[in-house]
């Protein structure tokens, strides 16, 4: 994930959050720096759009700085922060529905562009090519993620990529833990079907984990 152990340790430091809560701008800036990448990546996977992800992340952190003093339990900072992000994401989705705008990504047929190349280069292990392949694979997988409905996508991203516990996700979304697990189950099931349709399996990728 690119975070140093120190950063991860810092992210959960109650001390830092407590100072940020008291209005220490330096601490607030540090919190933003520590968490920005996480929130940005969550939003990016949700929209698959850099600009939107940046916008929503910034909104999230502005809101965080404003409302931090209202946070009661420092231990719940993580789920609280994701809650803000999820709400802004949903707001954005509603707004985009209203304006009926279509993002460039949606018009650009990624599948048609990518899949032939992707299949032809499947078993090559060259380093630059593999990097390219890696990027393409990442894009395809995220495309598959985008095909899930919003509810399932939120849960899958938070669990699979953000590593939140089911209890935390339930807190973020204000639903029961069983509902979270159920959404996760159907989300993963859906993803599997989408990937099967795209003929992407562990074998076609060509390298195991």
């Amino acid at each position: 994930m690119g975070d140093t152990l120190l950063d991860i340790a810092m992210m959960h430091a109650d001390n830092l959050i407590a100072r940020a809560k008291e209005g220490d701008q330096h601490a607030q800036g540090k919190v933003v720096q520590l968490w920005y990448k996480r929130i940005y990546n969550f939003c990016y996977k949700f929209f698959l759009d850099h600009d939107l992800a940046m916008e929503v992340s910034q909104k999230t952190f502005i809101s965080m700085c404003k409302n931090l003093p209202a946070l009661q339990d420092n231990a719940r900072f993580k789920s609280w922060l994701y809650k803000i992000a999820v709400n802004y994401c949903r707001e954005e989705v509603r707004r985009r529905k209203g304006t009926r705008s279509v993002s460039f990504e949606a018009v650009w047929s990624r599948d048609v562009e990518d899949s032939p190349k992707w299949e032809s280069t499947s078993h090559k292990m060259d380093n630059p090519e593999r990097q390219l392949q890696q990027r393409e694979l990442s894009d395809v997988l995220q495309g598959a993620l985008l095909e899930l409905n919003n509810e399932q996508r939120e849960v899958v991203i938070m669990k699979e990529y953000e590593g939140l516990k089911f209890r935390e996700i339930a807190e973020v979304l204000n639903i029961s833990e069983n509902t979270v697990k159920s959404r996760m189950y159907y989300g993963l099931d859906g993803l599997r079907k989408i990937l099967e349709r795209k003929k992407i399996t562990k074998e076609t990728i060509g390298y195991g984990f």
Partner: protein
Amino acid sequence: MDSKGIESDLIAYLYGELEGKEKESFEQYLLDNPEAREELEKFKQLRSVMGNVKDKEVIAPPIFVGDHHQRFWNAPYFKTVVSIAASLLVIMLVGKFIGMKVKYSDNQLSMSFGSIVEPYIEARQTIPALTSAQVQEMINTSLNQNNIAMQASWSETQEKLDASVKSNLALNSAKIDNLVRESSAASQEQIQQFVSGLQTENMQLVKNYFQLTSNEQKQYIESLLVDFAKYLQQQRNDDLQVVQTKLNSLEQNTDVFKQETEQILTSIISTVGNKKSLGTRN
């Protein structure tokens, strides 16, 4: 175990969030159910595939929020207050430059450019109905007229009174003068005599006057009573006459009736007599 429970346990197991007894029982369940094992394996593979999605590197943009001074300037109420003040200032400046005048009087707001136009106000003054001041004025004039009339009658009576008083005074003063002149010569007895005489004179005068007026009143009341008695007499006479005439006519009527009955009786008797004679003849 129902399917929902299995699904959630499967998911929890997949992410290593199943612990203790639950974990053991689920592992047992997996051993008993190859389909469940297969599903779990599929999910594991999916996870490893999805694990290829890498985080995008991003640099956090600077976010400044906690600046209280900044907040003060951005506070909505401050903005509105400042904007209102600014617009007022602009209006005042513009008004000053174009020489606009706003005047509020008599429940009327008038705006004008340059000096206030007088004819307009004059024209306006002819239009309105009676103002309270005018009504007051009318009341005052009528009151004044009344006062003047009253004053005139008053002054008239005053003059008359004055005249009579003056004449009396003149008379009395003349008498007093005489008296004084006499008193210079005459004794106090004479003065007393004169005073008593004057008193008796006055008494006589008042008595006479009272008698006169009481006589007049008596006469008037007597005449009134007499008239009334006369009227009543007349009325009674009239009534009596009416009754008399009624009685007379009744008498006449009865007389006529008597005569008629007599005639009828005589005629009946005669006819009966004739019949009898005829019968005897037959």
